[in-house]
């Protein structure tokens, strides 16, 4: 069963220079348990695609459905609930909330979900431990290195056990050991819970572990292949 379905999904942006077709009639499904890499040069439409399948944006035309629900039918509240309960994001720029500590950042989604304080504290601490930050729980983002912030962002995306994780260059700021550990963690979650992962990356190591590789060019799918591992 597909977690995400795109049918002729198109996203235009109106700019002063004219209309930009960031995504142009894209059709494909993302199945539960996919461990997928989306690759493509800058401007190929990766970020627009992630925004659509992350329910952050709606298509100009075509249909984008998540868990069988078309985004066009959802209002702001329903989209927020969908993101909160089903999707985890790892942004390239980390995007941690600056006034919250590492553990508070990781707890945040669970706070929105209404998880009791003690439980979310314990789960957040455990997840930060898994990404190697067990001793930096109370540090705020400005007191963490880029790699440490990236790992907090990964922990935040994974802690609530979302069905779909969207990660933009999740290993970009990590050394090879940390990168390997993180990939192992995500692969484990993928295998154990059939969590769906979609990565936008140029990292060959991550691409080498993908079981599906999609290439975008000029807003269209150039290739989409499943790789047996």
């Amino acid at each position: 069963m597909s977690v995400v379905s795109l049918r002729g999904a198109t996203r235009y942006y109106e700019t002063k220079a004219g209309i930009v077709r960031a995504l142009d009639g894209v059709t494909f499904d993302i199945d539960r348990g996919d461990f997928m890499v989306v690759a493509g040069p800058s401007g190929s439409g990766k970020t627009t695609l992630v925004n659509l399948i992350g329910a952050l944006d709606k298509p100009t035309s075509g249909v984008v459905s998540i868990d069988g629900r078309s985004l066009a039918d959802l209002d702001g509240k329903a989209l927020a609930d969908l993101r909160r309960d089903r999707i985890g994001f790892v942004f390239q720029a980390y995007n941690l909330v600056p006034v919250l500590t590492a553990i508070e950042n990781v707890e945040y989604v669970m706070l929105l979900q209404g998880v009791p304080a003690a439980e979310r504290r314990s789960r957040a601490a455990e997840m930060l431990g898994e990404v190697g930050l067990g001793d930096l729980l109370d540090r705020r983002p400005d007191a963490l290195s880029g790699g440490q912030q990236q790992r907090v962002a990964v922990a935040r995306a994974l802690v609530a056990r979302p069905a779909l994780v969207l990660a933009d260059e999740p290993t970009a700021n990590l050394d090879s050991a940390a990168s390997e550990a993180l990939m192992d963690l995500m692969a484990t979650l993928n295998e154990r819970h059939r969590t769906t992962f979609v990565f936008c990356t140029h990292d060959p190591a991550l691409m080498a572990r993908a079981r599906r590789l999609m290439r975008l060019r000029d807003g269209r799918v150039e290739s989409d292949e499943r790789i047996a591992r």
Partner: protein
Amino acid sequence: MSGLVGMALRNLGRRRLRTALTGSMIAGGTALAVLSLGMNFGTYDHMIDLATRSSVGHLEATRAGYDRKPRLNKTLVDPAAAEATLRAQPAVQAVSPRVEAGGLFAKDARTIGGLLVGVDPVTEGSVTSVPRSLGEGAWLPTARGVDDPIPAVFDAGLLHQLRAAVGDEVSFVGQAADGSLAAELFTVCGVTKLKDGAMAYVRLADARDLLVLPGRVHRLVARVDSLRHVDEVVLGARPAEGDVVQGWDALLPGLARSIEADRASGWIFLAIVLMVVLLGVANTLLMAVFERTHEFGVLMALGTRPRQIVLLTLAEAGWLAVLAATVGGIAGTAATAWVGVEGIPLGDMTIEYGGVTIDRMIAVNSMLGSVGVPAVVAMCALLAAAVPAWRAARLHPTEALRA
């Protein structure tokens, strides 16, 4: 919900500069508004106090209509009942009787019209400040021998026109209540400081003898523990039929009207202060929302609903408003109390107002100032935060993330 409210409080603590900036604006505005209101109320109280202490007291019992048309025979129907009904009220601190009559005062070839007032030398000082504010000489004695001259205290203005001084004799000619001629020779024992006053005070017993008013009273002058209780006492008094009890505002209508007019401008000033606070808070919070656009985008991407963004923004503003308004209220109350004790001397800039000369600004605390103003400021600040909160909730996640 409570998690977001708690997070809002934490956010304030971790954004110290912005919190201090907005908080000091709210606290400063609140303190200013509390002090301003306190000085308004204090100055009014001071004016009323000066006016009532100089002659009329906080309230008076008279025969109905006596105030508009004084007549010698228009004495209280039942002075004992009027005094009893006033003294029965806990707020009343003192009551003193008076009789009075117009007449001519003369010395040598000079004759001046004035008002002869018979007062109780002992109790008068507890309802007005006349006995304690003499410019020269001494207050009336409590008793005198049969052959002793009749002592009188004159207002400085009347005595000056008569070219008389302490120790001189001044004659009085008027009409007694029985229609006979009331003529007497007084010896000046003291002079008030009232340069435009035209009254002469004598012992109540001497005035009653002269005017043939045995046991009768024109006015019962009373003082209460606080001006706030005047209306309560007036409403609670049950004098005999034909007698009335009136507060200072009915006795000094010119002063009451002046204060009422000034109070309106005071409210306008207060509204302006609140408006400045409101605009300042709205501006600071709006700037904060602009600065935090990216952060709101992240929160939205993580699944925060628009309503929760509003809640978070309003909760931050609410915490800040309540804390800062409380601090401002305490500071304003303390400043008002200080000004209430010390006063602010006006030096040469004394103010003539409603017939009263104000030489210093006095402030007084009130529930309205200490509690009402901070509450209104906090509500205004929260109201001011509504626009930024609404704007934050309307952000589009992808646009906010690009900011």
